[in-house]
């Protein structure tokens, strides 16, 4: 499947002289597929959690396209997104909102998928700018994806080219509403339709060199 030498199966000789096979994809990576994670058993608890989730949006600090430039002003005194419980985290493990900021080249898509999968459920995706909706001005590019929704479950699009920071702030408020109503279940949607997503992803990413799900 892969042609990357470091991921190919190989025979290794242990210090005691024992020879055995190492299959990096099997040995280095967890192979379990994602599962649908139901919310808390008691609805009121889940609502409480959703409320807290909506008030604490941690964005993955990963600028995937040109729209990333619009996120920086949000940290400045003029926009100060922190007021709204929005913060940036440097690691996907701790983030729960992934903003795909503009066009996504297929090369970046692979990284975006990896980062998305490494986030914890529930996790949200916002598509920023027209390019994430239909490819925008790159609608016929050989190198970018057109409809983000086919590859990752998008909760919200913020249209524009580029949308201004104010639009982003409005988008966050919109996102909060969605979360509070309990409709932001992109992660479960992704797990449910895992095969479909993967098929779409693999269609555009030709050098697929990772496990199907990056835990």
């Amino acid at each position: 499947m892969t042609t990357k030498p470091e991921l190919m199966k190989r025979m290794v000789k242990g210090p005691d002289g024992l020879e055995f096979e190492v299959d990096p994809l099997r040995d280095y990576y967890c192979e379990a597929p994602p599962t649908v994670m139901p919310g808390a058993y008691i609805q009121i608890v889940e609502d409480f959690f959703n409320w807290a989730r909506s008030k604490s949006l941690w964005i993955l600090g990963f600028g995937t396209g040109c729209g990333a430039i619009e996120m920086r002003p949000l940290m400045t005194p003029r926009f100060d997104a922190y007021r709204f419980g929005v913060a940036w985290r440097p690691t996907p493990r701790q983030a729960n909102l992934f903003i795909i900021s503009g066009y996504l080249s297929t090369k970046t898509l692979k990284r975006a998928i990896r980062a998305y999968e490494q986030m914890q459920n529930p996790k949200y995706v916002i598509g920023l700018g027209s390019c994430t909706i239909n490819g925008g001005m790159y609608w016929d590019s050989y190198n970018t994806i057109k409809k983000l929704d086919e590859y990752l479950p998008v909760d919200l699009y913020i249209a524009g080219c580029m949308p201004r920071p104010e639009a982003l702030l409005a988008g966050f408020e919109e996102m909060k509403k969605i979360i509070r109503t309990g409709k932001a279940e992109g992660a479960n949607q992704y797990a449910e339709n895992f095969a479909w997503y993967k098929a779409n992803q693999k269609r555009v990413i030709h050098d697929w060199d990772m496990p199907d799900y990056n835990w």
Partner: protein
Amino acid sequence: MDFDWMKIPYAFLTVFIVVNYGFLMGALIQKIGARAGRRHGIPIWQYYLDVIKNYGLRTSITHGVMFYLGPVFRLSGGVGLLLFMPVIYGSYMFSNFSFAGDLILALYFVFFGTLGMALGAGESGHPHAAIGVTRGLQQVSMAELPFAMAVFSVALQYQTLSITEIVAAQQGGMMNWTLFTNPIAVAAAMLAFLGSMMRPPFDVFIAPQEIPIGPPTEYHSSYLALMQTNRAIFPVAKIVIYMNLFFGGAGSWPELFVKVFFLYLFSAFVGVCFPRFRVEQSIRFFLVWAVPLGVLSIMVV
């Protein structure tokens, strides 16, 4: 002093008060820092929300047993540190488990959480976690030195290792505080304090982006929630040591709140004013500025 069962609810009460205080004060300090950047900053209750959210995350991964236990060590370290100290001077209720040991116990228990956390981060297998840990350890090894000397100086000054007795000796007016009776030791200790507060200029071990926040890179969900809880308790507990040793201790919760707040603010002030040191730079900083002060403090006491 000895154990009795009532200590257990009292201990829970102490932890409860400190956690809440820690969350609120942490956010307040954050807001003050934001004001320095002309922002409003986070809401005052933001930390509660973050913690609840993190507990509320539905999935989590584990890299292994030590990874799993790392945050447990971390929080146990913070809680233990708090409970091994007489938090409120003269109060039986909030002396907690200080019968188990004196100042030395507190000083060494600081490392309990650090060690566990370092091991947990190590098992994640993430190189950046290890890099962060080594940076932290290297910096702390030198930052601890002036503090240790200051502690020694204070212990010599009061001829005791009992925190209660040290606080008792500082009663009767501000001028009796170690801050004024042994200013050199306090100066050394406060420089060390900066080094242990994970704030600029001594925060290269959690440098975001370069080594995505260092040791906790892999931590998330409830692990992170535990660590956030510890972030509320541990600095307060540590500042309580400083407060008891150098600033006359606290006879009541409000006094404690105020003193801890201002001590915390000190590190925040320095933090917003200065850029970041590299590890060897901070080692040299402590070696050149803080250590001589510490040496001086044990020589003149």
